[in-house]
């Protein structure tokens, strides 16, 4: 009774298989030489600057937090879209209210310059 899931299972197995295979080949058959600049992190050929330890500037988090909240809005749209034809005008007005309330939030963010990238 799991027939419906065999394709997904197969996909997962093949994907992980290929990934592991590649790693396995590069470890065991790869030519190894550890000297000079080869060990530096690759920064498109430029000489690498700074270390991986210095903190990421704080202003990136604002985008991340607001992404989560608007991601939830999109997730509500998905089941609504599935039955929007059956709900008709009632469903449309319902989702309109939902989106308008979040639009107020969006205009608030724009106005307050929360996403300003000075």
């Amino acid at each position, binding site marked *: *009774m*799991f*027939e*419906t*899931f065999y394709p997904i299972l197969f996909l997962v197995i093949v994907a992980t298989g290929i990934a592991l295979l590649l790693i396995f080949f590069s470890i065991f058959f790869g030519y190894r030489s550890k000297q000079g600049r080869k060990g530096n992190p690759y920064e498109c050929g430029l000489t690498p600057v700074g270390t991986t*330890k*210095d*903190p*990421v*500037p*704080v*202003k*990136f*988090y*604002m985008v*991340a*937090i*607001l*992404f*989560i*909240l608007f*991601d*939830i*809005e999109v*997730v*509500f749209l*998905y*089941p*609504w879209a*599935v*039955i929007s034809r*059956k*709900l008709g005008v009632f*469903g449309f007005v*319902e989702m309109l*209210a*939902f989106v308008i*309330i*979040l639009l*107020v*939030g969006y205009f*608030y*963010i724009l106005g*307050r310059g*929360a996403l300003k990238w000075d």
Partner: protein
Amino acid sequence: MSLDTLIFVISVIVAVFSATMMIVQRNPIASVLYLIVSLVAQAVLYVQLGALFLGSILIIVYAGAILVLFLFIIMLLNLRGNEDLGEKSPLVSQATKFIVSILFVLELVFVVRSGYVAESIATGVADTGSTGFGSVEDVALLLFTRYLYPFELTSILLLAAIVGAVVMARRENRDIQQSMFVEQTPSETFKKGQG
């Protein structure tokens, strides 16, 4: 030992093991990754219980977005788990907390065992997709008619969260000349690193 029970046992072991590992970890990045693994295992349990749509939502939205936000914030705050966390709280208080929680769990497990649970699910669980249980259609139908009011309430909750997140996390220079409350301005090292 049918396939169904096998999958159940495997995902339970993975879920419980990674949940405990999450707590024990010193490095918060490893904790987040263990929590993601635990959630994926729970999603398998959701699917086994017939909640196909919710299982996928759990992985896409929850493990995919929210826990990635946790990871992002941990990277942002540059936590390596090596901060000095002050002295460990006394062993006695930790032990009592542990025992209290174990008793609490045993109490609830006893409640479940004695409770009467309709065994109707003895029939195959996964193939219920066809009988209209757990598919997107049914959840959506219910969500947008009977749960109309809670649905609109969630948009207000999201608005409150947006305003809250902007207020708390936005950098305001007006704050710098602050009130008498300020006992300590942000330490020098942090200012330099603010970028």
